[in-house]
């Protein structure tokens, strides 16, 4: 953590919002926030993200007939033919199993863990599907699809509802930081501005790509992680840029 005369590090603010700092650090951050509008603003954004996440439904019962369709889809994926990198061979999953593995797999902790994971993923998928149906029109109006230059138009779709809310918070925080950065551009050197603008363009391009992919495949947790990481990089770069002119 930085000293109380400096802005609180973003990671520390996250820990503060999560309540995982030790007592002394909590006290220091708390005092700082009381007297610093910048950190108080960032903390407010973090709190609202947590509050939004807390309001998401914990569970949602799927329709009775959806399991049959999902099971069929999962069974189809089990039979997929898989490429082997480097050798050019095509090997099926069944070819990779050892003879004894099939007999023991139902008793294997790893298999049970995978089964539990599949159950969680299926449950999450159902939840997302249902929520998406309920909120599709509202969200489509709120967040029109982003399309990378030169790419084909994406079919009308929406992001997962949980991420849509998080994206709203990211957008709001980014908007505030962009204002702060724009207000002090004249005090930054041309080289610094070029570096920042180039990096922002790189991040925006990554966000657009990942976002398009997530719109097309809204249940892909990897895409959610990657898109969140790119937003985080943008927030971080803007925060650091906003602090530059005050110290240099």
């Amino acid at each position, binding site marked *: 953590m930085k000293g109380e005369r400096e802005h609180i590090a973003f990671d520390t603010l996250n820990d503060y919002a999560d309540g995982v700092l030790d007592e002394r650090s909590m006290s220091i951050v708390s005092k700082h926030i009381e007297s610093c509008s910048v950190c108080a603003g960032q903390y407010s954004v973090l709190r609202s993200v947590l509050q939004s996440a807390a309001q998401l439904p914990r569970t949602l019962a799927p329709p009775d007939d959806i399991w049959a369709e999902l099971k069929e889809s999962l069974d189809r994926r089990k039979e997929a033919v*898989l490429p082997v*990198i480097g050798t050019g061979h095509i090997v099926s999953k069944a070819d990779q199993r050892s003879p004894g593995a099939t007999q023991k797999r139902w008793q294997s902790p790893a298999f049970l863990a995978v089964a539990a994971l599949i159950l969680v993923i299926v449950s999450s998928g159902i939840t997302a599907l249902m929520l998406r149906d309920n909120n599709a029109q509202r969200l489509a109006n709120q967040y029109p699809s982003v399309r990378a230059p030169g790419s084909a138009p994406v079919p009308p779709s929406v992001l997962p509802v949980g991420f849509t809310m998080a994206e709203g918070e990211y957008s709001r925080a980014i908007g505030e930081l962009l204002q702060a950065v724009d207000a002090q551009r004249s005090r930054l050197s041309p080289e610094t501005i070029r*570096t920042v603008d*180039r*990096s922002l363009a790189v991040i925006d391009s990554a966000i657009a790509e990942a976002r398009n992919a997530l719109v097309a495949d809204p249940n*892909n947790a990897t895409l959610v*992680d990657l898109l969140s990481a790119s937003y985080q990089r943008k927030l971080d*770069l803007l925060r*650091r840029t906003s602090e530059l002119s005050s110290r*240099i």
Partner: protein
Amino acid sequence: MISSRYSARRHGGSLPVGWAVVVAAALAAAGGDARAQKGGDPAKGATPRVAIERRGAVASDASIRLFGAFSTLRIIGWDRDSLVVSGTMPKGWVFDGGLASAPAGLPRGAKFFVEAQSEGYTSGAMLEIHVPLRARVWAKSGSADIEVSGVTGGLDLNIVGGSVTVSSAPRELNIESMDGSVRVLAGAAWLRVKTATGDIDVRGGSEDAGLSSVSGTVRVTGGRYERGKFETVTGDIVYGGEVGYKGSVDLTTHSGRVELRLPPRPNVELDAATVTGTIENSVTSSRPIAGREGRGMELGFSSGTGDTRVVVRSFKGNVELKPR
């Protein structure tokens, strides 16, 4: 009044800055110091520079802050409870600050700054600062080359361009840079490095490491990491460190190449996925499978005791597992 000008630059209220140091700033005429001339602007001919020297006793864990227009800074930790700042700067520039007054005992803090009074110089102040081994040092500048050795306390270093090289192993190390490159040669118990375009090169290990860059390369080539999070947007990630027992390392990139160097028989639980890229495994017999909807690839395996965890996520960067 120097102290009022100084506090106006800080965030928040002011801190009493006492003049407990011996100020021995000797003015040097142009041409008096060969090293000083090196920083002058050739277009202006021989640029006059002045020498800087300040020294005083401080607590062994003192917090020392230094910021402003310095272009080179060497921070050296030594086994003495004293502080010495020396160097040169263009004539007419201001070097100011001092030790924080202490109600009892040795001062626990010191702050200095360099203020440029004219444009057109290719380099600013060139400083060397000796600090107690366990001191915490905070330094910020625009474009600067910072070298650190011997400090085992804490370091918080911020630059826009230039470079940072840390060859000691501080307890806490935080480095932020825009296009400046960063080299950490001996690790840090707690380590954070962030750049925009600058490359990051870390060795020596860490209990808790977080390295991120937009387009710079993140390279971790040695040491043991208990918990690591290494991220880029377009920059490559090369990880060749060990993962501590029950430790975990996350490598995340949008389009950078990920190279994971593992020992021949790794004790690792690996979970790698790329949305549209490829995965190559030259370490174990496990083969990647097609990703969701036939795009990209995924690879997961548990090898040896599997008591460490490595997670790789990439959008379109290719992932390679290579033997260390």
